[in-house]
């Protein structure tokens, strides 16, 4: 590559990729630096691990870590688990399959906060769900469902919002599997589950990994669903970060760096786990 060409490429990449790398790089750098006491906005900057030590010692922090991982992992698994059968069902077009696909994808069009509002509206104390349960006689009196302690509401919202995205990725991958392969497996006596386990799942592995990872990163960093519909006795990492920033940028930075590390490490682990489960440790 000549110098001239090299310079052209760099110039072309500058406004787009250059801007992305410099700003996001700066954001990540400032977060890491602030977590070690540097870039102090209100006084002298001193390199210290005190902020890490202090946060790691706080129960609020450790609970937020486990809670966010819980939400992230379960959201990813639930969304993919619901999307798979639907993707297989919609593999071959049939009358009405386009409408079904469109309805299933509809939550993609609904902004997160709106989804959260629709949800708390349906499950509110005198809401339609409580009324229904009383009308059919399952419950004697209305129950408080909003902000439930097990965070089922948050998981429901995450699944509702993310399942269509997983479906989008998986439909493409499942449709790309040739009929011959599935017919051959059927001829050799593979049942429905064996066909899924041995043919469909391994052949759509990369789409599944992509879905798992993207949903995990979104859900682990969730703020709005947690604040609106989540349990009030614990905080997600994003919520904790916004909360402690009011008193200390450095502590917020510790939480922020934790969040990035968890997003990255968790994505890798999920992708590897999916691969091991579906393909076994020795196959390629």
């Amino acid at each position, binding site marked *: *590559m000549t110098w001239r060409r*090299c310079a052209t*490429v760099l110039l*072309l*990449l*500058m*406004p*787009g*990729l250059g*801007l*992305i790398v410099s*700003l*996001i790089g*700066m*954001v990540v750098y*400032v*977060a890491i630096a*602030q977590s070690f006491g540097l*870039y102090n*906005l209100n006084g002298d900057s001193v390199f210290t691990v005190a902020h890490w030590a202090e946060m790691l010692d706080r129960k609020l922090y450790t609970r937020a870590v486990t809670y966010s991982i819980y939400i992230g992992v379960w959201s990813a698994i639930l969304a993919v688990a619901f999307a798979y059968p639907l993707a297989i069902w919609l593999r071959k077009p*049939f*009358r*009405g399959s386009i409408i*079904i696909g469109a*309805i299933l994808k509809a*939550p*993609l*069009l609904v*902004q*997160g*906060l*709106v989804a959260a*509002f*629709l949800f*708390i*509206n349906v499950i509110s104390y*005198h*809401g*339609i769900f409580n*009324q229904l349960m009383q009308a059919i006689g399952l419950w004697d009196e209305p129950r408080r469902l909003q902000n439930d302690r097990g965070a089922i509401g948050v998981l429901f919202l995450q699944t*509702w919002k993310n399942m269509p995205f997983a479906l*989008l*990725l998986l439909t*493409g991958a499942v449709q790309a599997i040739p009929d011959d392969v599935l017919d051959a497996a059927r001829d050799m006596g593979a049942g429905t589950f064996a066909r899924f386990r041995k043919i469909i799942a391994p052949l759509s592995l990369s789409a599944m990994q992509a879905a798992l990872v993207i949903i995990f*990163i979104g859900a*682990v*960093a969730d*703020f*709005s669903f947690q*604040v609106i519909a989540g349990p009030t006795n614990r905080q997600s990492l*994003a919520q904790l*970060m*916004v909360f402690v920033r009011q008193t200390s940028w450095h502590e*917020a*930075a510790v939480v*922020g760096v934790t*969040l*990035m590390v968890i*997003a*990255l490490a968790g994505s890798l682990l999920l992708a590897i786990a999916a691969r091991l489960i579906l393909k076994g440790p020795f196959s390629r």
Partner: protein
Amino acid sequence: MTQAKINSFLMGVLLAICTIWLLVPFTMAILWSLVDPAQPWTPDHLLPPQMSTYRWTNMWENSALKPALLNSYTLAPITAIVTLLLAMPTSYCLARVPFPGREVAKLLVLLPLVVPGFVTAIFFTAILFQLGLTQSRFLAILIAHCVLFLPYAIRTLTVGFEQVRQDHIDAARDLGASPIARFRAAYLPALRPSIFASLLIVFIQSIEEFAIAFIVGSPDFTTVPTLLFSRLGQDFIRPDAAVLSLILVVPNVILMLFLEALLKSANPTLSSGKG
């Protein structure tokens, strides 16, 4: 049972679930937005006892809705255009100029999508404080939105640039076209759907974006999502939240359907991630 019977049965079940999934929540939201404050909607009534558009007019006249709409709808088109202009050269390079490390560059483009939104929001604010650039919230949010949504624009436009045919470019060049004429004759026709798609995707994303607008904009710069968040939080008024939810969701659904039609006519939908 035959395959067709199974399908129609499954479809019936699914349509029923989807009614619960979409129709009930949205109907509830519409009904709540029409509740007249003179007579509260108590649980013993199936429908609101008195319906009026009072909440809509009240929100319009007595809340931060007008400035929020103004902010959202000036921010989004500017973001869409600036992002398009910033994305063009990089997309051209990624699609048509072979260079070592191109695959790495394509991955690096996705960086803003990997870093959690609230981390970007908070430490972007830290940088602004550090540099003393806190006068214009609008400008700060604009910059952050552009960077955040560049991946969508670059991905979409890269696919577009890949579809430009080399023989068209060569033909235009052979006929002595200037670079601008070449762009208009050979590139633009193949690129047009990607340009529209990029503008639409970024516009929608910017309207919907919450983390940056909330952190960088607080306390006095409101957009529609931050206003909705405040109405869902400390001052929760259900009918007001219903009005805001509908104001936020309806235009975007229309735009998204438009986008879907556009993408179907042009290129693989996956480049948008929204298809």
